[in-house]
């Protein structure tokens, strides 16, 4: 099934794109991450121009997170107050991200910056997750229950001035902490074309110390709004949102997300985290290869 993408200016196999969307959708349903970190590189690999890939992937992530937010909302798993703070940060962040994007583009290093970000972020998170999941699985096999981790926020968070109560998260901390966190994720969203869930979830757990029950829902809520803003930013500045590409991706991902949610209830969560960690690490390695060993292309063209 050949589909012509009017903004990307090329014809693709529509079925491949829908399947790609479904794959990321399953991931998002399984793990509560947007899956943009997988969509963008795979689209670029397929021949879609990088900017179009990043812009359209953020549109896709919006769709994939809607149903997730609705589902979590029904069982009270969204801390709207915390979400609002991280979203405010995200708006600031995506503005900064857009400026950074333009700056790195003008000096011709945007693709290097994106690759480095992917390698560092995915590498670090993948390693952390793999270690944690592997440890839990081993402990399970030996039959010993792991000690329940003490939930604490990072000492730096406590040092910030002014405190708000976040009831659902069970926190009494400075709103600056989630604001800065949201801004950082917003910058990365704009630069990498990802929702940032794979960073936000661990950061909320380990840095802010939010209660686990609201982490995924609140993260999805944040992603939903930040990707909406990112899509608008791309539409206004880069004009690279391809509606046809986004629709195809959405078609796959929204149904994939539902399948993923069903699957998540049948598999051990540690096993899931281990699989996600392996996927994340593989992508990081692939990017590292392009950065350090052999780039995909020596020459790149930018219109003047």
């Amino acid at each position, binding site marked *: 099934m050949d589909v012509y993408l009017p*903004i990307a200016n090329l014809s693709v196999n529509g079925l491949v794109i829908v399947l790609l969307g479904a794959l990321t959708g399953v991931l998002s349903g399984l793990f509560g991450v947007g899956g943009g970190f997988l969509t963008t590189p795979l689209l670029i690999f397929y021949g879609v121009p990088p900017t179009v890939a990043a812009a359209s992937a953020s549109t896709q992530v919006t*769709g*994939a997170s809607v149903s997730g937010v609705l589902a979590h909302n029904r069982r009270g798993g969204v801390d709207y107050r915390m979400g609002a703070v991280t979203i405010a940060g995200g708006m600031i962040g995506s503005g900064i991200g857009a400026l950074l994007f333009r700056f790195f583009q003008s000096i011709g*290093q945007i693709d290097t910056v994106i690759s480095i970000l992917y390698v560092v972020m995915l590498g670090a998170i993948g390693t952390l997750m793999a270690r944690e999941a592997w440890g839990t699985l081993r402990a399970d096999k030996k039959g010993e229950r792991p000690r329940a981790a003490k939930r604490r926020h990072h000492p730096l968070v406590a040092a910030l001035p002014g405190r708000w109560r976040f009831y659902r998260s069970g926190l009494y901390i400075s709103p600056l902490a989630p604001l800065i966190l949201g801004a950082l994720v917003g910058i990365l969203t704009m630069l990498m074309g990802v929702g940032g869930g794979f960073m936000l979830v661990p950061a909320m757990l380990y840095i802010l110390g939010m209660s686990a029950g609201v982490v995924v829902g609140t993260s999805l809520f944040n992603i939903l709004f930040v990707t909406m803003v990112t899509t608008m930013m791309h539409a206004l500045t880069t004009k690279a949102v391809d*509606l*046809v590409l986004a629709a195809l991706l959405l078609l796959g991902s*929204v149904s994939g997300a*539902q399948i993923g949610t069903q699957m998540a209830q049948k598999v051990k969560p540690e096993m899931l985290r281990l699989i996600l960690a392996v996927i994340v690490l593989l992508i990081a390695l692939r990017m590292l290869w392009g950065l350090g060993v052999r780039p995909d292309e020596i020459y790149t*063209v930018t219109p003047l």
Partner: protein
Amino acid sequence: MIRIALLLLAFFALTGARDPILVPEVSQHEVKVRQGFTGTELLLFGAILDPAGTRAARGYDVVVVLKGPSEPIRLREKSKIGGMWLNAASTDFRSAPSFFAVAASRPVKDIVDERTAAIYEFGTDFIQLSPTGEIDPAEQARFTSGLVDLKRRQGLYEEDMHGVKISGQVLYQARIALPSNVQTGTYTAETFAVTNGRVVASAIAEVEVKKVGFERFVEVFAQRQAFFYGLLAVSLSIAMGWMAGRLFALI
């Protein structure tokens, strides 16, 4: 009026006596890029006629050059710096054709000398890219071959040294494939008749590549109404996500 006609007649009678006339045609003057467009094949054909109207007796070679709209570009080159591949050197070209295809009846190097080939751009090595800035020939050659190699792998620069078929010394035809990732704009198809290493006749035909229907609508919408286009994209994604949630809840 009559005087002009006579003058023209005299012109052709005196100067054009030796040179043949090319009558070129293109299978489609308009390529419509719409949903399902996967590229197309252009048939460039025509006749080489003797001015006298008899069939051309001498052996002609025909070279066809199809060029897409040119654009100024910056070409960046990655080099390994501190163990990482970074964009380092770059060069600007003022007129890099977005598409370039050459077809000839015989390898160009057997038809004309290199100088003539360079003048008429008979081959991807001879594309006139108009580099700007300081020009170091060796470096320029490296950049040019890098660009040509990149574009060739994208299917945008082609060379077919046996792509022109000449039948009966009169009719010629060449097929050139346009991939789906071609840029829209006016393409020029130039046909050259060559004999004894000299270009003796040339003619130009134009092909318009344009988006039509929904594809054109989306492109114009994204450019002119960026804000509403963005809103549409956002609402589309929310609507689809919400609908999927409802649908799967029913199952």
